[in-house]
């Protein structure tokens, strides 16, 4: 007589192959290192958010003095707004990265690891692009001021 309470031989859950990767996995060492980075990433993120707050206060001060700054006042305000936005995006990306790392430690879900890697990639891409733009603007400003 068959055991009616025998567990099903059909696998009800998704197999690792459904994620598409072969056998590459993040070891305990990698997860431990990621967890170690979380605190420092969160700290830098909080610092950037605080710095963003100071930038907003400075921007408000600039708006109040706009009338005294002449024609260059508008350009300064625009540059300051762009700077504030970039700082905010940096802080947001790092905060998201830290949050994703926190979720990995609890859920150990591959999708959380994926989210963490995507967030850190977005942070570095933003860093690179904003640095490139800043370098180009400095070069253009130097050329224009020398003419």
């Amino acid at each position, binding site marked *: 007589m068959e055991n*009616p309470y025998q567990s099903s031989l059909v696998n009800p859950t998704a197999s690792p192959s459904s994620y598409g990767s072969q056998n*590459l996995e*993040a070891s305990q060492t990698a997860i431990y290192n990621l967890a170690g980075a979380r605190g420092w990433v969160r700290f830098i993120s909080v610092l950037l958010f605080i710095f963003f707050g100071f930038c907003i206060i400075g921007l408000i001060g600039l708006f109040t003095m706009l009338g005294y700054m002449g024609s260059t006042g508008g350009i300064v305000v625009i540059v300051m707004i762009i700077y504030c936005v970039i700082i905010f995006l940096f802080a947001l990306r790092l905060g998201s990265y830290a949050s994703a790392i926190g979720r990995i430690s609890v859920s150990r879900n*591959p999708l959380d690891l994926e989210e963490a*890697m995507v967030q850190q990639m977005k942070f570095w891409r933003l860093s690179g692009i904003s640095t490139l733009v800043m370098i180009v603007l400095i070069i253009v400003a130097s050329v224009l001021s020398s003419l």
Partner: protein
Amino acid sequence: MEQNPYALSQVSPASQCENHNTSDGIVITPNALAAVIGTQFWVKFMGILMFIMVVIQALAALFDLSETPQDLAASPLFDYVIPIVTMVIYTILAVHLMQYGSAISALAKTRDTVNFDRAMEVQTKYWKLLGILSMIILALIAFAIIKEITSSPYYR
């Protein structure tokens, strides 16, 4: 004798259900791997930029050395100490970034767990170093502000 219908299953459900989490680690999805590999270019770019900044600062410091002796002693802290410390910090950060970029390059070639571990280890060291340096700089700024306030003639 009939089989005991209440006997424990001979099949372990844990072994039947292939958990996406092994006992050792977490499966790295193709998107996660692509994201890590996509980081490589930007990390190396930022590392190279930091090295360039160090070189420019070194050249500026050498240019300052060619000034007249009377100007050299004007502000040794701001003319030499701070630039040298800044150069050392940028160099260390740049080295860590290049190491991270190299670890990702190795991961992109081999696609194995060891290189992923190495990449995560290096990036953790980078964030830890950046965090410690930020704390030191904040402490120095707070010290400078407090010193400025207390040395002010209006401070009671």
